[in-house]
């Protein structure tokens, strides 16, 4: 490695530098693991006491009213689920559609405008979207659907959909982009139309990447806080019917964000909020593990194809 002609330091000097750099990189790598472990430990330490303080049946009950010691978290879970599902229903078809358009159909100039634009949308602070939601989306929804208030699960779903959309588009587009051009040409040469090629060849070939895109999009939506807190109305009511989409709900994230600031440190309420955080952590862990399991499986398949 060292060239005596133009190296400035001596050999031992270099190996010393090497030692420091290796150590620093290793420390940086391990620190990520340590941080995640610490976060998890902290969540468990603050959240698990809930199970001793609130009985199981009280915890999974229908009423969330902490001031009077009602700690039923089912309404919050249902709120998160319904808003996230709504967001997924919006973001997935639109996202995959947009990805297909960008990668397969759009002319080059449109692609070069659309791709950065979508990424820009992804960088939009969620509080700005929430602001637009309160001022523009919610009033219009109220008038359009003739609702008592526009601050509903639907408004949250639409905005979360918009937040998840760039993730879905970006990842799905990358996946479609890695499908070799030869696959498409192979299908075209057989007389398949562009749409037949996309539907039967390109999309199946990019299946795992598209699935990852969906998972990451949902993960993005589930953890989003600011926007949902601003537009869903924050009523902790059990939401299980499709009709609940048109009434106010409260998500898990919004509950933590809204109440954590005022809670007494170490109280039952405090522990319960951490317990909710723990559940959220587990939700997104499951989603991410599923996503990477899907990717891992398809990677093995891809290696088989390439070998």
């Amino acid at each position, binding site marked *: 490695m060292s060239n005596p002609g133009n190296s400035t330091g001596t050999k031992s000097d270099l190996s010393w530098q090497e030692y420091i750099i290796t150590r620093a990189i290793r420390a940086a790598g391990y620190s990520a693991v340590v941080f995640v472990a610490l976060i998890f430990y902290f969540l468990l330490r603050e959240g698990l006491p809930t199970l001793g303080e609130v009985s199981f049946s009280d915890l999974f009950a229908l009423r969330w009213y902490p001031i009077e010691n009602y700690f039923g978290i089912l309404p919050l879970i249902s709120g998160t689920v319904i808003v996230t599902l709504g967001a997924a229903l919006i973001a997935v078809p639109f996202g995959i559609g947009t990805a297909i358009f960008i990668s397969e159909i759009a*002319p*080059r100039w449109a692609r070069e405008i659309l791709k950065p634009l979508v990424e820009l949308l992804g960088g939009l602070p969620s509080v700005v979207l929430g602001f637009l939601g309160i001022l523009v989306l919610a009033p219009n929804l109220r008038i359009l659907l003739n609702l008592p208030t526009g601050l509903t699960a639907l408004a949250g779903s639409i905005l979360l959909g918009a937040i998840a959309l760039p993730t879905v588009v970006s990842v799905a587009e990358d996946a479609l982009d890695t499908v*070799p051009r*030869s*696959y498409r*040409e*192979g*299908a*075209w*040469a*057989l*007389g*398949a*139309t562009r749409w*037949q090629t996309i539907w*039967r*060849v390109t999309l*199946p*070939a990019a299946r795992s990447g598209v699935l990852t895109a969906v998972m990451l999009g949902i993960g993005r939506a589930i953890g989003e806080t600011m926007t949902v807190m601003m537009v869903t109305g924050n009523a902790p009511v059990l939401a299980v019917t499709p009709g609940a989409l048109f009434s106010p709900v409260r998500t898990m994230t919004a509950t933590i964000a809204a109440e954590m600031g005022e809670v007494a440190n170490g109280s039952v309420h405090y522990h319960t909020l951490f317990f909710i955080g723990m559940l959220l952590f587990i939700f997104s862990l499951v989603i991410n593990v599923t996503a990477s399991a899907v990717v891992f499986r398809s990677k093995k398949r891809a290696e*088989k*194809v390439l070998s």
Partner: protein
Amino acid sequence: METNLNDKIVIENFSLQYVDGTESLRNINLRIPRNAITVIFGPAGGGKSTLLRCLNRLNDPADVKTMNGRILIENENILDPKTDIIRLRRKVGMVFARPVVLPMSIRSNITYGLEVMGEKRRSKLNEAVERSLKQAALWEEVRARLDEPGVALSGGQQQRLCLARSLALEPEIILLDEPTSGLDPISTGKVEASLQELKKTYTIILVPHSVQQAARTADFAAFFLQGELVEFSEGKTLFTAPSDKRTEDYVTGRFG
């Protein structure tokens, strides 16, 4: 130009330029006879693949800057904007240098082209699978595992699967772009043998991956150099007594 019933494809004053300035074709005049193997060969960048891709209009319109002249298949100018490209591609099959096995089973790889044409009858599809696999000399090797994924086959088998896939559509013309470049000699021999059989029914245009293969397989041969057609004649003549100095140099291995 006098017409000759024996010509399947007539290329007249055909020129093409790409947007990025690479590999263009200049004023090509070529008549490709039916029921024979016509070999298009020459050094890389000579425009061989470009010409093949024009014959089934697989060139991306976005990459092409200008395209002039005529390409007649059975007296129909396929460069005409009114041409039904999907129909054309069913008539002109293509096999690529690297086998492009679609991400589905062996059977579906073959029936895919027919299915997108709207063929649904199981009996017809099964018949096509067996017929085309036999024509491509692959039937005996895969008959027991038609529902396995196509990518599980070896490289040589994959390439013959691609050939079978084009044959299933019963095209009139088959374009082969260095179909054996990634194959071992035994698989290459099998592909070449099936081509000799197939030329009785089809018009075959082959871009070979070596001069030796060109000499082995050519009924007719066209030598392309830097976007120009240098020489075209019967294979025997071109490889034994070329009339152009450049052809002779290339064929005898002095360059290329």
